[in-house]
């Protein structure tokens, strides 16, 4: 990912042809970003304000921030690359992956998270299981967030280098300082407000790009016609997903069980950078609606990232030519922007890309500082201080986190593969979490040590599958399929170990599970007295989102 970006924009030939108007739009956006951070500073009076926006955010803002925190470089450039290489085959990550997972978070899991008033996802594990389980999850999350923030920072700096002609160190430091200012000043509110702004700007850049790209290829009918010459899975995402088939994304078991049910559910429902946005909502009803509100626009994102990638494969000769470093698949969107967008919309689109990278880093930083302050510092190192102490500490740890990110960015600049290694390493930790959470929420008897050993052995199982794939190249048809089966192995091993350990260890006293498990939810008295109107019910909205996502497959059957 990262090294591909280096190649696009790092090379002088691909420097986008930006006019002064385009630069002006970018700088106007920077002024808004900083201005918002400084204005919302006055709303930050306690640590809860800083880390969770004082639980005051309206549902629609929390919902858009929820998908925006994830709409960064990997999603935009990565899924465009998937489109350019495999057509529509990767839509599964959205329509049966992300969407049902976001609905599940809102409908099923949020009452436990929000109702129990936990302040972070690792805190749930501490209260449901024990400190060792908590420490594994909190520390792996903190470390991965700050390092991935560095990699995001590096991607952002590379774009600035290309656009403005700055040197890389200057670009890294300036980009980091922009993020630092608005997160330190505005806390989570600063990050969330900017994520929602970013969402609208990136959409305003990508919609015109998708429309012009399809028009340049001769219109929708012509695009569909030309795709008939490609492998069947380009237009029919389920084609070739039988076991032993040729669909590069994987087999149907891996896609449904591994990707959708284990990995997507794990990511969207337990990754604190996501869940934090929903926890910032002003009440339980808003918190439950937030991810579901986000699910609706998310359904259409494939048409803004995968579709332009597909069209790029049709109209950019030589895309994917490995001998030409500018023509990598990840460059599909920047190449289209350069080829098709006139000054004006080009400035909006570039601003959207820069904004997306910046928001990606800010999401890492704003979730890192919360977990580090609440879950590591307050839990294990300095307990029982006044709230003002943790607010101040949170601001300082943000500064330190950003500086570690800057260091990581410089390391990433030296070693291009670091991003890949980091992603692989953290995927081990991510693979089993969903099973541990879901057992914990629905099975009172599950013991604290079962939580710990289940999670540890799941991490081991994911690593073992990864190792097996290293020694046997033929095991999986693609890295997508490998990741799915790592998830399946981790989940199964976690499940079995959790059952066995539960049989031999002591469960938690039932009183300590208040609000954390099924049947012991904490009712929100205020919300109960004001019934939520039917069209605002999470179950209704959620069912609608899933139905719409699945319906998206139908038109492809006729192409």
């Amino acid at each position, binding site marked *: 990912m990262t090294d591909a970006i280096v190649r696009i924009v790092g090379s002088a030939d691909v420097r986008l042809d930006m006019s002064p108007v385009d630069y002006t739009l970018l700088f106007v956006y920077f002024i*808004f970003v900083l201005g918002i951070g400084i204005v919302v500073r006055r709303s930050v009076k306690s640590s809860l304000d800083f880390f969770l926006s004082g639980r005051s955010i309206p549902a629609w803002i929390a919902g858009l921030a929820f998908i925006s925190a994830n709409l960064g470089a990997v999603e935009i450039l990565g899924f465009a690359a998937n489109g350019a290489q495999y057509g529509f085959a990767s839509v599964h990550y959205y329509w049966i992956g992300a969407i049902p997972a976001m609905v599940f978070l809102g409908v099923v899991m949020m009452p436990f998270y929000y109702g129990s008033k936990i302040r972070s996802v690792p805190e749930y594990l501490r209260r449901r299981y024990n400190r060792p389980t908590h420490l594994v999850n909190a520390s792996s999350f903190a470390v991965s967030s700050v390092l991935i923030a560095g990699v995001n920072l590096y991607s952002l700096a590379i774009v600035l280098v290309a656009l403005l002609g700055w040197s890389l160190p200057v670009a890294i430091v300036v980009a980091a300082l922009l993020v630092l200012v608005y997160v330190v000043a505005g806390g989570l509110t600063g990050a969330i407000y900017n994520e929602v702004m970013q969402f*609208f*700007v990136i959409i305003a850049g990508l919609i015109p790009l998708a*429309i*012009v790209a399809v028009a340049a290829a001769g219109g929708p009918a012509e695009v569909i016609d030309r795709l008939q010459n490609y492998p069947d899975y380009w237009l029919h995402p389920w084609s070739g997903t039988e076991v032993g088939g040729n669909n590069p994304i994987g087999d149907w078991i891996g896609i449904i069980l591994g990707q959708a049910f284990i990995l997507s559910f794990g990511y969207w429902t337990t990754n604190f950078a996501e869940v934090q946005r929903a926890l910032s909502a002003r009440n339980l009803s808003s918190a439950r609606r937030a991810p579901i509100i986000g699910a609706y626009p998310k359904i259409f994102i494939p048409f803004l990232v995968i579709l332009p990638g597909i069209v790029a494969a049709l109209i950019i000769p030589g895309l994917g030519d490995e001998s030409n470093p500018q023509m990598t698949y990840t460059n599909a969107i920047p190449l289209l922007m350069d080829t098709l967008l*006139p000054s*004006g*919309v080009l400035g*909006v689109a570039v601003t959207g890309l820069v904004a997306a990278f910046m928001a990606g880093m800010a999401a890492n930083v704003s979730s890192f500082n919360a977990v580090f302050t609440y879950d590591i510092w307050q839990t294990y190192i300095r307990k029982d201080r006044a709230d003002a102490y943790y607010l101040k500490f949170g601001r300082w740890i943000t500064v330190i986190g950003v500086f570690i990110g800057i260091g990581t960015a410089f390391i990433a600049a030296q070693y291009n593969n670091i991003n890949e290694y980091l992603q692989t390493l953290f995927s081990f930790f991510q693979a089993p979490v969903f099973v541990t959470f879901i057992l914990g929420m629905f099975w009172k008897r599950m013991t604290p040590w079962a939580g710990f050993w289940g999670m540890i052995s799941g991490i081991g199982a994911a690593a073992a599958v990864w190792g097996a794939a290293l020694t046997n190249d033929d095991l999986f048809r693609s890295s997508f399929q490998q990741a799915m089966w790592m998830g399946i192995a981790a989940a199964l091993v976690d499940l079995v170990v959790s059952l066995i350990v539960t049989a031999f260890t002591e469960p938690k006293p039932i009183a300590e599970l208040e609000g954390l498990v099924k049947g012991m939810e904490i009712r929100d008295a205020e919300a109960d007295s004001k019934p939520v109107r039917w069209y605002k019910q999470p179950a209704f909205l959620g069912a609608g989102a899933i139905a719409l996502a699945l319906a998206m497959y139908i038109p492809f059957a006729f192409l």
Partner: protein
Amino acid sequence: MTDDAPAGYPEDSPPMTMTQARMLDLRTYICALFAIFGVTVTILGFMATPAELAKAAGMNINLYAGLSMIALSVVMGVWAIAVPPEVPEPSADPEQLPMVH
């Protein structure tokens, strides 16, 4: 607005006024940003050269995108005026509760 303040609310931190609430309303910023973006891009659309039109597959994409962004700006502005932000009640957080009661 100050009439709504509960008794005992510290005088040195007055309750939020509507102006301050609007300053914290994200819709205000989206409205303003897209007014600037929309108007700029629309003007470029009206001045589009044949070369620019040809580049974008014959479409005047600046005009369409600019007008769409102005529309977004108007929607956000109208929404922010029609449904004003709730002025938060002071000290919802127990830690900041006024001393009396």
